[in-house]
């Protein structure tokens, strides 16, 4: 973790004497930042005040310098305690009072050392491997009896996101959602990130994958060609979807319809409602989407592009699925695990036209991953933000318009 932090305590008549102001000024002037926690201001002149200050700096050396500079003014480093752990009482059950994670970078204190919690994700527990001085976030369902799980809040610290150095739309890290906001500059910033990430991905850099989680409205609304192009050109490296997106994408290739509507003609075609069932049946007969593409049965579209470009597709099923297609994971805990396993390395997430997949993916993403949520329904990005994915930039717009504009900005001729 590039951030170095320490918590200090200061008490006494620190307000009227301007000692607190002086300490904070020193921190800023030296190039550090701070958060004021638990400020208690004395209610009478006699009563002392106290403050807890979390100080952050870009290097250990700078942090040490800052601590040395403020120590004469009475700021003393808080004596931290190690985190407490308790064994999980049974498979799939956390101990009482387990520490529930946020999706922000988190550290625990083990053997008097602060260590990072790997694979951080919101609403999980923290599994400690004391022997190897390691810790990782763990879902409830994966915990095994006897696992050491962090309990309480002592010895756990959450590190707020630093404002990224890039001065684009993600620099603000705030999920304002409004249909009245202009879209163009947001899509331009997304395109710039994707261009950069494709380059980094080709060079084998870490955290350079672009994840797209999408719903079937991409097909209905006419965004299929643009997304296919984005995948073919190497801009998307991981796809999360359900049975429907894949089914309608291949229905479009086999029948030229999406849920029975002629994509070109724009109206229902006779017996069109059967097309997606016939598509699913055909792929089931072949055995897999990959075989359908390699055998030439399915030639164009999102699924075909994914197979050709080696893009990992994770399909999570739902209760109303037809079929489903081979490859759809119908056990939602298993689907969640598969999605979780694919998250490391993601550097940008696009959540497009799907409430369930957007929220599910948002839950799995660490706050450090820039995220865009695109939906015609403002409640989707709002819901995502309300559930804690505050880093997601919300775009209230049609999926096809978004994907087409994105592809155009990335060089697709319209």
């Amino acid at each position, binding site marked *: 973790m590039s951030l170095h932090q320490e918590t200090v305590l200061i008490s006494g008549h620190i307000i*009227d004497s301007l000692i607190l102001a002086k300490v904070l000024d020193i921190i800023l002037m030296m190039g550090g930042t701070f958060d004021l926690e638990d400020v208690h201001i004395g209610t009478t002149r006699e009563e002392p005040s106290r403050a807890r200050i979390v100080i952050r700096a870009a290097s250990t050396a700078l942090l040490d310098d800052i601590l040395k500079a403020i120590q*004469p003014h009475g700021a003393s480093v808080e004596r931290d305690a190690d985190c407490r752990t308790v064994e999980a009482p049974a498979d799939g059950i956390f101990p009482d009072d387990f520490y529930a994670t946020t999706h922000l970078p988190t550290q625990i204190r083990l053997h008097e050392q602060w260590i990072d919690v790997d694979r951080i994700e919101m609403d999980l527990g923290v599994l400690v491997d004391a022997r190897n001085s390691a810790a990782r976030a763990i879902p409830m369902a994966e915990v095994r009896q006897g696992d050491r799980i962090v309990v309480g809040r002592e010895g756990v610290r959450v590190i707020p996101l630093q404002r990224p150095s890039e001065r684009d739309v993600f620099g603000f890290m705030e999920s304002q959602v409004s249909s009245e906001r202009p879209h163009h500059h947001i899509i331009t910033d997304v395109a710039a990130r994707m261009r950069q990430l494709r380059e980094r991905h080709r060079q084998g850099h870490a955290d350079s994958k672009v994840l797209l989680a999408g719903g079937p409205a991409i097909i209905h609304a006419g965004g299929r060609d643009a997304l296919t192009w984005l995948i073919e050109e190497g801009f998307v490296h991981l796809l999360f979807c359900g049975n429907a997106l894949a089914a309608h994408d291949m229905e479009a290739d086999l029948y030229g319809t999406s849920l029975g509507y002629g994509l070109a003609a724009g109206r229902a075609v006779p017996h069109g409602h059967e097309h997606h069932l016939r598509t699913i049946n055909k792929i089931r007969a072949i055995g897999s989407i990959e075989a359908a593409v390699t055998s030439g049965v399915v030639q164009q579209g999102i699924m075909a592009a994914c197979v050709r470009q080696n893009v990992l597709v994770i399909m999570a099923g739902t209760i109303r699925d037809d079929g489903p297609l081979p490859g759809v994971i119908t056990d939602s805990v298993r689907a969640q695990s598969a999605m979780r396993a694919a998250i490391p390395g993601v550097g940008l997430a696009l959540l497009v036209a799907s409430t369930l997949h957007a929220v599910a993916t948002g839950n799995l993403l660490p706050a450090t991953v820039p995220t865009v949520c695109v939906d015609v329904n403002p409640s989707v990005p709002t819901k995502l933000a309300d559930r804690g994915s505050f880093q997601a930039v919300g775009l209230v717009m049609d999926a096809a318009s978004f994907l087409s504009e994105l592809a155009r900005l990335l060089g697709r001729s319209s």
Partner: protein
Amino acid sequence: MTRLLVCPPDFFGIEYEINPWMRLSNRVDHERAVQQWHGLMRVLEQDVGVEIERMTPIAGLPDLVFTANAGIVVGRTAVVSRFRYPERQREEAYFENWFSGHGYNVVTLEKELIFEGAGDLLGFSDCWFGGYRQRSDIRAFPHLSDLFHREIIPLELVDSRFYHLDTCFCPLSGGELLYFPSAFDPYGQTAIAQRVQKGRQLLVPEDDALKFACNAVCVGNHVVLPSGCPATERLLQAKGYRTHSVPLDEFMKSGGSAKCLTLALD
């Protein structure tokens, strides 16, 4: 009647250098020092009318004369100093013995909390000020505030020549404050201005400040200060104080003057 603790200068001299005023080469004229000290006692006892308590001087402790650093006394409670420099740490036991031998409840702070007594803790009846950074540790003040139920505003001393608060800051009995602003940073100056109205601030010019004009003893409307500070005397007289200037330059060689040579006992 005001009582002051003093220590005769039998063994006063410069035997080490622990502040910018002290120079081993700058020898004290011992006879003159003794005369000056007795001159100060005469003014305090006869002109000002205070009661003097004399400690027994100890050979090898040249700075024991500076009793302001013995500790802080409030009522029958005395908090004994913990000196920063080992040269003066040897004085602690003698001061502690004197206080306990005279019936005070003696309080000592944690070992690592440096606190140099009334030299760094001064104030008015409701609000005290604590000098820190040069000698005392700011972390001592919350303990003292808690013990004595007084607000203590810490003030950083930014000029090493004014190494104790009482070298640049002197609260007066009428609520005025005699002080040298440049000894404090802007935070300290602002904090002082918030507690002492402008009309009550008596700003000592640098020439006088360097003669330790602020190292004065104020009892009622009497102010005893080192000689050679005419501007400060005028400031005080304009506020109705009776000034008594006393030659104390032999003690200035050690970085102390009238106030440093006394400790107020309640």
